[in-house]
């Protein structure tokens, strides 16, 4: 998936610049803004989400989109949102990380193992923190190894992270012998897992904080800019002196770290390791990023888009339940929307290349 390489090349031959058709009724500034809005993928994603919300609200005014609904959706999606943050970085580099659900499980299992040997349900605050750090470290390390495989060993991301997906789950089963560990520290489950701050669940607060912080890093720092540059044209990035390999390793390590964080959040929420429950998390997360307007060819996408993209399936699911339509239709609908989103991206890319 290195489609960005040729994109920078100038068309060959001595084509003379085409005069652009003028639109005298519109000022250039207004036109620029309009063009920016139309071409911004988040505009469309947000529009889709708004239409869904309005539709369900009209169909079931008293049930849909009440505050409790929203907080339920956000709470169920908290771990997914954190993983989607990491996935956004990976996809921006024209990569993909299929391992996230398994890395979530593995990080949770290792932390849970630590808790069981250090007080179990009665473990103290220090132990809870240390276990969380261990879980994060497992995710980070696992991601870094996958990044190394992608950047240095030149194993395609799809394969490197598919292998990581299987291996992390395998290790989880080996460690636990196949049965979930379920005596989590009360200090973990009753705080992060259940408690609220100013009326908002901790899980929601954490997930949105993560999205905001890493969204800002993506948009405003050198790390973010290099991520876009590498996804856009890795050779150009290399030629201006960016250490592309090292940056890729960091990006995959970040995705692993996010999966580790999601692992701890999931432990806190469910109170056990839920080993069998995350087989399709990777697909959910990738769907969110792509629905959010990121290009699988790298270089294009935003964190805001990802956040919106994550809540489209959730809104759809809740809405279908409320209007008494079989909720499994959501998978069909999401599949269709996903294909449409990628087709649109391809279409625009072709248009651009021809220009």
């Amino acid at each position, binding site marked *: 998936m290195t489609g*960005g390489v040729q*994109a*920078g*090349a*100038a*068309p*060959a*031959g*001595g*084509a*003379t*610049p*085409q005069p652009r058709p003028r639109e005298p009724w519109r000022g*250039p500034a207004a036109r*620029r803004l309009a063009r920016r809005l139309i071409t911004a993928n988040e505009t469309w994603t947000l529009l889709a989400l708004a239409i869904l919300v309005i539709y369900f609200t009209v169909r079931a005014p008293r049930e849909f989109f009440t505050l409790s609904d929203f907080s339920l959706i956000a709470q169920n999606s908290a771990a997914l949102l954190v993983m989607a943050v990491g996935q956004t970085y990976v996809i921006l580099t024209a990569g993909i990380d299929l391992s996230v659900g398994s890395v979530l499980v593995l990080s949770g299992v290792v932390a849970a193992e630590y808790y069981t040997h250090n007080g179990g349900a009665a473990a103290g605050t220090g132990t809870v923190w240390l276990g969380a750090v261990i879980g994060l470290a497992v995710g980070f390390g696992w991601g870094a190894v996958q990044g190394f495989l992608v950047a240095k060993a030149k194993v395609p991301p799809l394969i490197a992270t598919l292998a990581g997906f299987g291996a992390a789950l395998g290790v989880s089963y080996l460690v636990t012998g196949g049965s979930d560990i379920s005596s989590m520290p009360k200090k973990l489950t009753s705080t992060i897992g259940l408690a609220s701050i100013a009326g908002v669940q901790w899980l929601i607060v954490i997930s949105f904080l993560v999205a905001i912080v890493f969204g800002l890093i993506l948009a*405003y*720092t*050198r*790390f973010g*800019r290099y991520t*876009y*540059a590498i*996804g*856009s*044209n890795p*050779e*150009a*990035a*290399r*030629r*201006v*002196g*960016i250490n592309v390999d090292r940056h890729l390793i960091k990006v995959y390590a970040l995705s692993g770290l996010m999966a580790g964080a999601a692992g701890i959040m999931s432990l806190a929420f469910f109170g056990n390791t839920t080993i069998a429950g995350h087989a399709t998390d990777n697909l959910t997360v990738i769907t969110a990023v792509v629905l959010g307007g990121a290009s699988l060819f790298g*270089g*294009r996408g935003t964190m805001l888009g990802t956040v919106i993209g994550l809540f489209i399936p959730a809104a759809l699911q809740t809405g279908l339940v409320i209007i008494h339509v079989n909720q499994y239709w959501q998978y069909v609908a999401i599949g269709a929307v996903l294909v449409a989103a990628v087709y649109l991206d391809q279409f625009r890319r072709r248009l*651009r290349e021809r*220009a």
Partner: protein
Amino acid sequence: MAEPLLEARSVTKRYGHVQALDGASFAVLPGEVVALIGDNGAGKSTLVKVLSGAIRPDGGEILVEGEPVSLSSPVDARRHGIETVYQDLALAPDLDAAANLYLGREIYLVPLLRVLNRSAMRRSAVSAFAELGVELPDVSAPVATLSGGQRQSVAVARAVAFASKVIFMDEPTAALGVVQRGRVLDNIRRVRDRGISVVLISHNMPEVLAVADRVEVLRLGRRVARFTASEASLEQLVGAMTGALTTEGEGGVK
């Protein structure tokens, strides 16, 4: 002859079965425009990449102001004041013109946290383009949305903005219309007048004779002739490129 600013001595580079550079030598003198010409596949782009640190040669020597150096990355070359406009431009199409101009050399608002100063970069990008007479409709539009000529201008502006000794331009006018082409040639002269040497690679012989002070000819990965542009004719250049005329190593034209 003044001491060369930048010199390649007997550089070799092989790609599989292709000997792209076969003992190529090349020199850039201070404050000159030197044209590097040769037929397709002669090894011009390969030589440029070697001298700008983008690829490592198999053998030979590179000297900057008489000192042997090793250019193991483009960053090394830049440190010596050498900038390059590559034939494939090497821009990130999804980033805007300002971001491309400063890619790898960002200006920070909060240096500690590596927070970018986007407005400062945009401002100085606008003035860098204005200085070159380049008109971009929107410096914050992705480079992919620009025309071929505009993209080329971005790549040229980037090199001009940062070079202190030498700029390589690999076919900078190939995608341009007549007006834009004239501008690039003006810019080449303007850069030279600032004391920066320019290496121009081009297949357009009238253009070469119009703008270059000297011409060096590459054939089959080796330098075969050197000319002073004001004394050379079109026939001589073409003869040297096609192999009808070889002066190098026979004590011919200096």
